């Protein structure tokens, strides 16, 4: 079942109508949790999936509880290492398979929402260690981790924010107009996913299928090849955007109808002037998670120990953070390229900013950023770089390379 299916949408509409008529917080919490477990049940493929999910959640909960009671650094480090190792094995990463024994990957376990569970597990463990989690009970933790509005593809909500709404379980939409807006947003999300995204994907498939034909039936002219390529080049990012932002519209608006405020995940990403800004606009909750749990600790460790090297090492921290973000997206080799491009993009943006400060000073940088013509050029250039990164998002890397070779007249 997905969030655009009739069952999911009818279920959401039916529950949202009666949810706040039901008496008492505990009844609503019970229904929310039951709905989440029910949704997860439709996603778990087999008993091995249940065992894996249970072990994953239980380990996260008990370690977080232990870290709350006694914040031991080695327990945190050991848990994070084990968690990441389990993640790499469970996700069947191609680059890990190339270097590790094959027996490690010969398992039937597929955990629903594993990629997003990982982020929430790390967040809860680190914040528990640092005394930032508050009350941690099995019920709250389970509801947070299995929240049907975030388990499969985010947005990545933080535990304290979830608990604010979970403890009250009261309406968060202030009047009839706000409720109507939420229903409209669900409808818009369905439209984005089912119509716009589907059309963009169909267009992309058609154009790229024509481009990979060689010999008889191949596109004859270079001009037409270029035109077809550009169509495929722009349509795939449009598909990803409509698909993911549409999904987010449905889950964010749907959650608000049940009194849960999920964080926004998109803020006009294609008007970003560079890749650093882009990651504060596209999949924002992932960008902020990466900033808080990857970039900040990495840069902080360097800047605390070697303050004189901090400025020059910042771009390396940006690269590492976004490279890892890229490969988190999927287990195949294309995501390594996706990660490399994103890492290079943010590192280049930081280096360019450093260059501007060195040559023009802070005041000069401010003037540069305020210049509207420069902004237009930067936005257009960054948009095309974003499209290039997403060009490597489809898992068929050979096909992506073949498309590029066709464009360059090499195939």
């Amino acid at each position, binding site marked *: 079942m997905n969030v655009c299916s009739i069952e999911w949408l009818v279920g959401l509409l039916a529950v949202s109508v009666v949810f706040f008529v039901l008496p008492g917080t505990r009844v609503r919490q019970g229904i929310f949790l039951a709905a989440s477990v029910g949704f997860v049940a439709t996603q778990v493929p087999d008993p091995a999936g249940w065992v894996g999910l249970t072990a994953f959640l239980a380990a996260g909960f008990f370690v977080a509880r232990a870290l709350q009671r006694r914040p031991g650094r080695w327990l945190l480090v050991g848990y994070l290492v084990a968690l990441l190792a389990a993640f790499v094995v469970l996700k069947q990463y191609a680059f890990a398979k190339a270097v590790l024994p094959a027996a490690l990957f010969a398992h039937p376990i597929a955990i629903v929402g594993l990629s997003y569970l990982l982020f929430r597990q790390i967040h809860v463990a*680190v*914040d528990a260690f*640092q*005394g*930032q989690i508050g009350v941690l009970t099995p019920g709250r933790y389970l509801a947070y981790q299995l929240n049907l509005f975030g388990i499969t593809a985010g947005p990545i909500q*933080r535990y*304290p924010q979830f608990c604010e709404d979970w403890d009250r379980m009261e309406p968060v939409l202030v009047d009839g107009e706000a409720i109507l807006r939420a229903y409209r947003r669900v409808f818009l999300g369905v439209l984005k996913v089912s119509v716009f995204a589907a059309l963009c994907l169909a267009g992309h498939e058609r154009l790229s299928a024509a481009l990979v034909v060689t010999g008889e039936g191949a596109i004859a002219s270079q001009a037409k090849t270029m035109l077809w390529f550009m169509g495929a080049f722009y349509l795939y990012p449009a598909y990803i955007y409509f698909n993911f932002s549409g999904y987010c519209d449905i889950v964010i608006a749907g959650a608000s109808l049940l009194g849960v405020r999920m964080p926004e995940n998109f803020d006009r990403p294609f008007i970003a002037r560079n890749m650093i800004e882009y990651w504060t606009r596209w999949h924002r909750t992932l960008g*902020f998670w990466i*900033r*808080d*749990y990857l970039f*900040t*600790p990495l*840069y*902080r460790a360097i*800047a*605390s120990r070697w*303050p004189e090297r*901090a400025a020059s090492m*910042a771009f390396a921290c940006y690269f590492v953070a976004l490279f890892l973000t890229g490969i988190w997206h999927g287990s195949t080799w294309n995501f390594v390229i996706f990660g490399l491009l994103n890492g290079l993009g943010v590192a280049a943006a*930081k280096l360019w900013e450093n260059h501007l400060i060195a040559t023009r000073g*802070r*005041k000069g940088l*401010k003037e540069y950023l305020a210049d509207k013509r420069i902004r237009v050029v930067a936005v257009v250039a960054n948009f095309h770089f974003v499209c290039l990164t997403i060009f490597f998002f489809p898992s068929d890397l050979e096909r992506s390379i073949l498309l590029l070779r066709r464009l360059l007249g090499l195939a």
Partner: protein
Amino acid sequence: MDQVRNEVEQVFRNVFGDDELVLRDAMTADDVEGWDSLTHINLIIALEKRFGIKFATAEISRMKEPGQNVGHLIASVAAKRR
């Protein structure tokens, strides 16, 4: 509190390289030239060293959220110092 405020102001001046910077409670990152994500971490490290305190990851990110200002930052430093 006044002493904490003066010391925080001194840290700001060092981090942002502006000897004439005067802090007001209502100030936000937009009001201080060069206060971006990176200098924010530099500022936190400098405050931690100066006051012998430690900020959690969640606290660092909260400080840059809308609605947060210099007044909140000074209050956090003062609370941790106690």
